[in-house]
């Protein structure tokens, strides 16, 4: 049983990671949900073997299921419920503003990278211009040593 659960956890994590690398926010939300489920499954796994429900007076000495991971998993589920609701609202807002829900690159980053690229292009252009001028001077203009020739 534990092996099957472990494989399921791994599967959920891998699916979630793949979806996390997408561009559309709706896919990201599904991916994050899957990863959250994987994490909760892992919490449940950490509780050990299954047993009877842990109520005082309801068991007669059998093995009792560990109540702690259940409480932890419940808290994690509630938290992810709230955050998923927020992410959905964010995706909705993005759709209202731009008609799409792509996660975009940072504008300022692109601007600075673009500025650096433009600077590099300028330098290359400068070097090429100097090289061309140097070639002209060698080929066409008078050489220094020949000016005061006979």
């Amino acid at each position: 049983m534990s092996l099957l659960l472990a494989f399921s956890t791994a599967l959920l994590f891998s699916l979630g990671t793949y979806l996390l690398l997408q561009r559309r926010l709706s896919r990201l939300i599904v991916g994050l949900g899957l990863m959250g489920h994987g994490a909760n499954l892992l919490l449940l796994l950490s509780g050990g073997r299954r047993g009877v429900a842990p109520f005082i007076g309801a068991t007669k000495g059998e093995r009792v299921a560990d109540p702690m991971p259940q409480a932890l998993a419940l808290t994690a589920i509630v938290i992810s419920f709230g955050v998923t609701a927020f992410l959905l609202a964010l995706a909705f807002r993005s759709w209202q503003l731009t008609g799409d829900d792509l996660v975009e690159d940072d504008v300022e980053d692109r601007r600075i990278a673009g500025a650096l690229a433009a600077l590099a292009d300028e330098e290359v252009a400068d070097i090429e211009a100097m090289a061309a001028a140097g070639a002209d001077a060698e080929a066409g203009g008078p050489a220094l040593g020949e000016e005061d020739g006979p």
Partner: protein
Amino acid sequence: MRVLLPLPVVVPLIAAGISMAFARQRNVQRAVGALAFVITTGASIAMLVDVDRHGPSAAFMGGWSAPVGISLVADRFSALMLVVASPVLLAVLVFAMGQPGTEQEQPSFHPVYLVLAAGVGLSFLTGDLFNLFVAFEMMLTASYILITLGGRRDQVQSGMTYVIINLVASTLFVVLLALLYASLGTVNMADLAVRMHTVPEGVRVAFALLMFVVFGIKAAVFPLFFWLPDSYPTAPTPITAVFAGLLTKVGVYCLIRTQTLIVLPGDRIGGFILVIAGITMVVGVLGAIAQDDVKRILSFHIVSQIGYMVLGLGLFTVAGIAAAILYVVNQVVLKSTLLLVGGLVDHAAGSTRLASIGGVARRYPLLGWMFLLPALSLAGIPPFSGFVAKLSVVQAGLSAEEWAVVAVSLVVSVLTLFSMSKIWAGAFWGEVELVAEPDDATSVRFGGTLPMLLATGGLVVASLGLAVAAGPVFGYCQRAAADLLDPAAYVRAVLR
């Protein structure tokens, strides 16, 4: 003391509830918020005095004692963090009340801000790792809302990045908790410290690394910091100030706490942490030099300064950790001040892009002073508090014979000074060039509305006060560091 301990958590939460119920009445919201922070500051100071005198003390939620129940623990480190965080939260609230913008337009600002404060308080006070997760989520969810408050396009875009990265970090945190519970059977931090020796060494080192990654994402160390400069600058100024001053420092607090308490002395990954610290410092300051917007430069500087704190941690000596704690205290105040000044510049000049504005100090000398003093402190110029903090880090590094990383930190210090002077020259000095001017009387005269100036001025005075009181503060930090490296008193207080 038992009554004081939960106050920094419960008072902001009740205030948030009242704020929500009175969502239409801004005056009730403001009064409740300010009162909550005043009470929290008072409780933190009382806690600090008590803990310094009597050692760590714990309160148990619900009457269930550790390790089954959740414990709230105040030791010297957490009390100090609370005492520093609460006034900063109050000052930023006052600033937000004065700034025409988010606070005045959105009824949800006050409740969410109070929940953020409750989350920060709980992260500092909790002695249970899962409760730390809950506190983080409280803090982070409030920060998701605050960072996108206003719903503008650039906010939504950078908010998406911020939310997704933090959600991944939270999932990793749950994985860490599950693995810890599976191997050790507990999530109480003191109990973990006691039981750590029962697992093999490889597992212990793996846990140390995983804890470093989880809290490193929050603390923005290399290579986990890329979300910070993308998302912080687009939030409204008071929000950025709180995030920069507090949220990353909560990450550093958790790093220091877990690496000293839960990781056994034989498994400490000091060398690795030092390398990360060095690279963080360099990458942060180089990124800052490449930017030309005041808020973006300051955001990159956050990353660079985190490197210094992690450097202090990586030394794992009393001097190193004391230096790290002093640095954290300094940065909480300084970074918030600088970002609030950035907000004042935005208000007075209409933009924060260095190319578009100039001469703000000539037009509003008060703003010039309010930038100059914290900036010199950040760059490490004597006699300011930043200099004391940097000196303590360098001295700790030299006495631990880590020459390389100390050399890196000195070079980065020079580059920080260069970057600060770039802001000064670009925005504050030179010809007066403003994009848009404010129109109310106080702003025309002094550069900002009265609450904004009061809040920023108060924080500047606090940073000067840190410089004056550097001796006693550093002594306290040394006692706190000694407590951290020898957690017997902490464990005894929790697991009695």
